[in-house]
């Protein structure tokens, strides 16, 4: 292999770039092709697992809801699944359905957020504004049910805290219907647009073998033809009672992952609609007096993939050990496999395709061997958009038409 001058590449974020500092992603390039990548994380480490040991079992959901803002229904649910496993209890049916409703609403707004960001990275700012505008009705619904747009705090050991009032059901169904039309329009626009095809197909491919080696989860895995989904494989809440399907695509590139996410929004609308219609009567929580000694493994399918919580109890009222694994923890390192061999103009969208936590995405830049920034994030973003513009010119296709409802 020719020994060329190696320039490490670093990522520095879009909305908060810190140009003088190396952080997060260090990519090594050969010319304009990425040859290796290293990552430094630590900026977000808040020592949550240790804090969990000082909280009581029913205080922990408030803590883990804030592990990641956009998976804030999945983390507490995975934790609750673990604790209910230790206690040997099952929450009442109505609570299981409410958990499904909240989690699917979260999936919808999380994937729409991703669609917006993805559009932003490749220069489709209309898509960004559009997707984030149509997240708002979902956030409004969540606020009506739980009292907050994020950090719902709705699960507890043995059930749920807030009920879905029956008067609200028609409104939920109406909003879901409206959202479905809009997302169908967006999905069709994206799937038919030749520029997006040319821009995203074959980019950032994660092969099935690499996906297994890096043990990825969620749409990152399902976009590489690995049909895993905790809701199907290890059903929790009411998913076992509802009729839905796992979405996969075989190609493993950014386009495949985008398709998986868009179709999952439609599937989430389908699941949520069924759950609302079938919502059984009854109590929404059991009284649990104490948690016996034992250990439990709870998991939930967050928008980004499998969230896994391991909880150990010694019979007291606090967990003695609480391990939290967010899906991004296994998905982000796989960026190494999907990014090597890519052009630096594709780095931002390849990283975004893994759908890491928002602030992680924005830590990319290129520096030379003296750690002087050669290409900062703004430049990488510009390169990404210029590539789209070039493709547009070559293909000569019309503008992506986004209808407003």
């Amino acid at each position, binding site marked *: 292999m020719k020994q060329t001058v190696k320039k490490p590449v670093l990522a520095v974020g*879009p*909305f*908060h*770039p*810190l*140009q*003088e*500092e190396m*952080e997060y992603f260090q990519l090594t390039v050969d010319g304009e092709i990425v040859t290796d990548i290293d990552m430094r994380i*630590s*900026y*977000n*480490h*808040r*020592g*949550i697992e*240790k*804090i969990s040991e*000082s909280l009581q079992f029913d205080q922990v959901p*408030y*803590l883990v809801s*804030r*592990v*990641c*803002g*956009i998976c*804030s229904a999945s983390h507490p649910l995975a934790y609750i699944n673990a604790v209910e496993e230790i206690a040997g209890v099952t929450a009442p049916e109505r609570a299981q359905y409410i958990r499904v409703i909240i989690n699917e609403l979260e999936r919808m707004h999380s994937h729409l*957020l991703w669609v917006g960001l993805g559009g932003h990275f490749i220069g489709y700012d209309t898509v960004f*504004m559009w997707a*984030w*505008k149509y997240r*708002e009705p979902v956030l409004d619904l969540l606020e009506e049910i739980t009292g*907050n*747009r*994020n*950090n719902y705090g709705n699960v507890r050991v043995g059930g749920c805290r807030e009920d879905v009032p029956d008067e609200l059901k028609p409104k939920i169904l109406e909003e879901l219907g409206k959202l479905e039309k809009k997302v169908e329009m967006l999905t069709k626009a994206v799937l038919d647009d030749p520029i997006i095809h040319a821009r995203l197909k074959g980019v950032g491919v994660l092969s099935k073998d690499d996906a297994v080696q890096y043990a990825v989860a969620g749409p990152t895995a399902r976009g590489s033809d690995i049909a895993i989904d905790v809701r199907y494989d290890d059903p929790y809440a009411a998913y076992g009672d509802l009729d839905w399907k796992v979405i996969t695509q075989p190609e493993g590139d950014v386009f495949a992952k985008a398709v998986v996410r868009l179709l999952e929004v439609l599937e989430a609308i389908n699941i949520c609609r069924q759950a609302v219609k079938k919502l059984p009567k009854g109590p929404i929580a059991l009284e649990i007096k104490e948690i016996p000694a034992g250990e439990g493994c709870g998991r939930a399918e967050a928008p980004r993939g499998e969230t896994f919580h391991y909880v150990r109890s010694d019979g007291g009222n606090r967990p003695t050990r609480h391990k939290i694994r967010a899906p991004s923890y296994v998905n982000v390192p796989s960026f190494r496999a999907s990014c090597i061999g890519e052009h630096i103009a594709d780095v931002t969208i390849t990283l975004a395709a893994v759908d890491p*936590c*928002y*602030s992680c995405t924005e830590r990319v830049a290129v520096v030379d061997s003296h750690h002087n920034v050669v290409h900062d994030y*703004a430049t990488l973003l510009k390169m990404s958009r210029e590539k789209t513009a070039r493709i547009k010119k070559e293909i000569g296709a019309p503008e992506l038409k986004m209808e407003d409802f």
Partner: protein
Amino acid sequence: MWSLKKSVWVFHVNTGACNNCDIEIVNCLTPRYDIERFGIKLVGSPRHADALLVTGVVTRQAAPRLIDVYRQTPKPCVVFPIGACACDTGIFRGGYHVVGPVDKIIREEDPNAIIAFVPGCPPKPEAMISGVVKALSAI
């Protein structure tokens, strides 16, 4: 000071947050809230900023960066700790990797810093806009 009152340019710093506040900040740009019509814009460098929107508890790793950003921001500037974590470390109080909150770190660097708190978990975009407007009118 009057220069801060109109068309405030803000720079966003994440010092170890769950991203809820960060997403709500970006939400302010989207059609429902659309702060760009007030001339408020998110800039790419602290050197162009009139105000800092700081989220997160300030983890040990992020603290030097926060101080760096503050130094680079031309004075006078207003620091807005956004969210419960930035205002007072929120639910992460006492964590071994948490050195915040934001005002403690900033005041170590500059005891006369202008700091305006926007609490919430996360604060809704309306709360953030209201907080920023209130603080700037009071200056």
